[in-house]
């Protein structure tokens, strides 16, 4: 068996395990793939039950060879029972099945953190080469199966309901991380909107007044989705707010955030895009530093022109002690500045078409005479019309202000 073939089997099994939470048919598919991938005649997959003493439930059994002895099913039960109750493994064990037939067996408990969550039994023809390569692959598969079975029980039972409640609470906490009230800054109107694709998400929007009375704006996006992304989003918020109290320039703030988060982000191969801007309301100057986030869009109300304020900089967690660049732009009356996540421009409709930057500009252009809050509402309406009944794939977050 080649390495590619081994990888292929592992990949197929893991992919099916991901489906298993929603589709129990996936377990039958797993046993089928194991038979074809490993050349087994029969495979069964068992779940350990622990209510009122140990018991077992067969999730699936697949016979790749016709006319196997009828006794095999009962013997399979007995072997799985020993594996689950006694933690007993059988490796290339020759067993008599029925009156005249012998078969080779690999049976193993599925262990997750020393706890038996199930068992797997693989039956082979007696002349199968009882090699170490197959055995090593089976061990790898067993590790993945143990985690998959654990996830299945966790999500499908009472634990699933508990998790759902925890998610609800997490969503409540995350909503509380959004600015409680929009700061009242002289000469501008401000608005922000956030539509999560799941209960919790990895988009980060923040607005606050700095100690020297400037408007601080932070927009970020954590790699991935769901709870892990939400955890990193919360950590990023703490790091940025702390740095913004100590440092006054956006580039220095991002450098401090990167210094703080880099070891953990790099260690887990996760990245965060982050943009931090400061608006000086008296001189109407916007200062900006960028860590891999999409450039803000500036719509010049007087000329009808728009531009992207591109400032290069790598994502947070990319390089240790990275020096970020600082840029500034002079704004004028009627200018609109939009900070956004990729969920805005990449929102797709039923035909798979993205909303795109052009449509965002169109919405700003057509509604430029309105206040920031009204423009934000129009943008949300247009995004909603574009997405229609299609499932929202990514978080949609944006923040905009208009120089009045």
């Amino acid at each position: 068996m080649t390495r590619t073939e081994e990888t292929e089997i592992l990949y197929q099994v893991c992919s099916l395990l991901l489906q298993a939470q929603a589709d129990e048919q996936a377990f039958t598919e797993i046993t089928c793939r194991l038979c074809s991938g490993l050349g087994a005649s029969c495979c069964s997959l068992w779940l350990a039950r622990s209510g009122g003493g140990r018991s077992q439930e067969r999730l699936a059994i697949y016979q790749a060879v016709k006319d196997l002895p009828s006794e095999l099913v009962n013997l399979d039960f007995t072997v799985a029972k020993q594996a689950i109750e006694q933690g007993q493994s059988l490796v290339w064990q020759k067993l008599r099945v029925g009156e005249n037939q012998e078969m080779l067996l690999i049976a193993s408990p599925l262990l997750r953190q020393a706890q038996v969550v199930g068992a797997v039994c693989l039956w082979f023809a007696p002349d199968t080469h009882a090699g170490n390569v197959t055995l090593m692959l089976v061990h790898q598969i067993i590790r993945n199966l143990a985690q998959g079975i654990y996830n299945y029980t966790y999500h499908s039972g009472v634990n699933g309901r508990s998790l759902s409640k925890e998610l609800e609470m997490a969503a409540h906490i995350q909503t509380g991380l959004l600015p409680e009230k929009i700061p009242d800054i002289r000469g501008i109107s401000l608005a922000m909107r956030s539509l999560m694709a799941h209960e919790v998400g990895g988009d980060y929007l923040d607005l606050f007044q700095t100690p020297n009375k400037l408007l601080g704006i932070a927009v970020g996006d954590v790699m991935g989705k769901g709870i892990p992304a939400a955890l990193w989003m919360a950590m990023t918020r703490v790091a940025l707010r702390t740095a913004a109290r100590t440092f006054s320039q956006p580039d220095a703030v991002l450098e401090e955030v990167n210094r703080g988060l880099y070891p953990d982000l790099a260690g887990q191969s996760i990245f965060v895009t982050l943009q931090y801007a400061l608006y000086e309301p008296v001189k109407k100057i916007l200062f900006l530093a960028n860590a891999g986030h999409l450039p803000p869009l500036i719509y010049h109300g007087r000329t009808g022109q728009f531009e992207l304020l591109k400032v290069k900089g790598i994502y947070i967690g990319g390089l240790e002690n990275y020096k970020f660049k600082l840029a500034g732009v002079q704004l004028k009356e009627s200018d609109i500045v939009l900070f956004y996540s990729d969920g805005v421009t990449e929102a797709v409709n039923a035909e798979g078409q993205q909303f795109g930057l052009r449509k965002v500009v169109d919405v700003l252009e057509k509604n430029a005479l309105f206040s920031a809050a009204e423009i934000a509402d129009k943008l949300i309406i247009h995004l909603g019309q574009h997405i229609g009944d299609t499932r929202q794939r990514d978080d949609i977050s944006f923040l905009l202000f208009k120089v009045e």
Partner: protein
Amino acid sequence: MLLQIRTEISEQRAVLFLEGVLDISTVDFLLTGVSGLAGVKEVDLDLAGVTFIDSTGIGGISKAVTKLRERQIYVKIINISADLFEIFDILGLPEIFGTEMFEKIRAGNS
């Protein structure tokens, strides 16, 4: 559609042709495929067949490159669409890994 990876190895150079979706559901397949490469000194990741990639997929490519470089393997990303390269550029990947890592950038959508 899941991710399919076809690997061609000649002498000490491997080309991994990625086809399909590179996201949270498939990224481990890429990492497994990369870690399984033995006895090579050069690896090309050919992204011509990638139809969709999300941030987890980009993180996976970044991780794959890092892991290969730790093993002193020279890595290139080839046949990447201009749109995807623009996203990589905004994220700063060429600055982190070097612009020479990217070759044969294709015009048009991914």
